[in-house]
């Protein structure tokens, strides 16, 4: 990446973090949804800067284009105005939360420790066709297809559950 690329990388990284925070802290669910869309878009720009336009496009098509539209659709249909704040959690729950946060920080820290903060995957040029060929190669095909069957099973399950409750 050149200097402009690095600047854009940090700008959109910051935007992703800020909008992720906004998503969690926001009380209005519709705002949260819009903030999440912004997170997806900034992540997509970062993927693009890292030399992977294919993932960048998929990030927007799948998450911003499909998943979040459905989220918003439901939010608007139900016309949720404001999140009802839950009562302050008890001391035991706070302990669990603190333990989980520590575990998460340790995990992220260990990843950074092992990877280092240098210019990691720079210079990796992948064309879309090459990437598709890799994805459908014998190495990844099985996992790829198994995932899609899993998603299909979840979909069928959701339809069955929805039908049963409608009767």
């Amino acid at each position, binding site marked *: 990446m050149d200097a402009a690329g690095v600047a854009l990388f940090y700008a959109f990284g910051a935007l992703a973090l800020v909008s992720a925070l906004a998503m969690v802290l926001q009380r209005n669910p519709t705002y949260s949804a819009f903030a999440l869309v912004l997170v997806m878009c900034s992540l997509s720009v970062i993927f693009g800067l890292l030399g992977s*336009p*294919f993932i960048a496009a998929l990030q927007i*098509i799948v998450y911003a*284009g499909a998943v979040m*539209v459905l989220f918003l659709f439901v939010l608007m*249909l139900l016309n949720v105005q404001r999140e009802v704040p839950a009562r302050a959690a008890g001391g035991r729950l706070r302990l669990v939360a603190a333990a989980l946060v520590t575990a998460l920080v340790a995990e992220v820290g260990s990843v950074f420790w092992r990877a280092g903060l240098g210019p990691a995957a720079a210079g990796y040029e992948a064309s879309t066709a090459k990437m598709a060929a890799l994805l459908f190669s014998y190495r990844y095909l099985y996992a790829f297809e198994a995932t899609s069957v899993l998603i299909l099973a979840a979909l069928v399950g959701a339809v069955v559950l929805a039908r049963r409750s409608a009767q």
Partner: protein
Amino acid sequence: MNEPLPLTPLQQAIVSTLQVLLIFAANLGLFTAITYVERRLLAFMQFRLGPNRTGPFGLLQPVADGIKLFFKEELMPESATRWLFFLAPALSVASAFLALAVVPYGAPVVLPRWGLLPAWLQGRSFPLQIADLDVGLLYIFAITALGVYGIVMAGWASNNKYTLLGGLRSSAQMFSYELALGLSWVGVIMLAGSFRIQDIVASQQGFSWGLPNWNVFRQFPAFVIYLIAATAECARIPFDLPEGEAELVAGFHTEYSSMKFAMFQMGEYINLITVSALASNLFFGGWLSPIAFVPASFFWFLFKVLAFLFFFIWLRGTLPRFRYDQLMQFGWKLLVPAAAIWILATAGFLAFGPAARVAVLD
């Protein structure tokens, strides 16, 4: 002839800026022209005259409309969510223009060696395209997906039941037909072996049995699916339910006035241009010529785009509107399965047909 030197960053910036401005201005001009032509053509189809008072043949009507919209009072509902209400039209028009960035308009232009041009520009060739992305079609798909948010935001932020219903209808419709739209491209992508629109146009070169090798002949079902889904994506008649005036006042843009309303209109027409340009590039050989001895040129492309625009106006003058349940049934139960079956057929032809290529995997 020696290879021209690579451009300095400053020169590159100048060239890119000019490219963007030129393409932006050309599309704005086309947008202005369509608003006039559409009203006139619709009028003729309905045995009326249409706008014919402003300037010769009413040609200055778009200018008058623009001035009127600029000076209209801007209204905003008191209970609206202010920043989303402002953001929505901007998002809608920006996403429309962003999609145009990867559309190629013709073969690269080679500048002549005139004395008037700066020396570093002479004899250099420039593509008639802002960004030649490796994932061109996917990029367009992603940007159209973002365009939905402008509409959803407008419908929600206005805080009005009609706009909300209009926004919901739009998002459901665009979401459903985007699927068919994307699937209709797959056959074309498989034939070309690339997402790059330049490659897809190049794959349609040549003639067989006196006909050009255009995808409209090789991929006719995909073309029909594309045309229907694209009409629905642009919310044109017969798919203009999002703004069905009889039941929803004006749909998601009911509360918008003045230039904000104009921005929504502009976004819609720019989307229409994008859709027509894509139809020409993907299915009608872009700037390639249909006659063997006539060279390919930008004018072929322009002619094809204008023909598609005329077709969409013609549709609007001819067809009634769908009912909402018909729209959803048609999209999900007919268009999507048909597109999927056609993909299978194309894949089978490529794998086992006369020109079967052995895919090279790692």
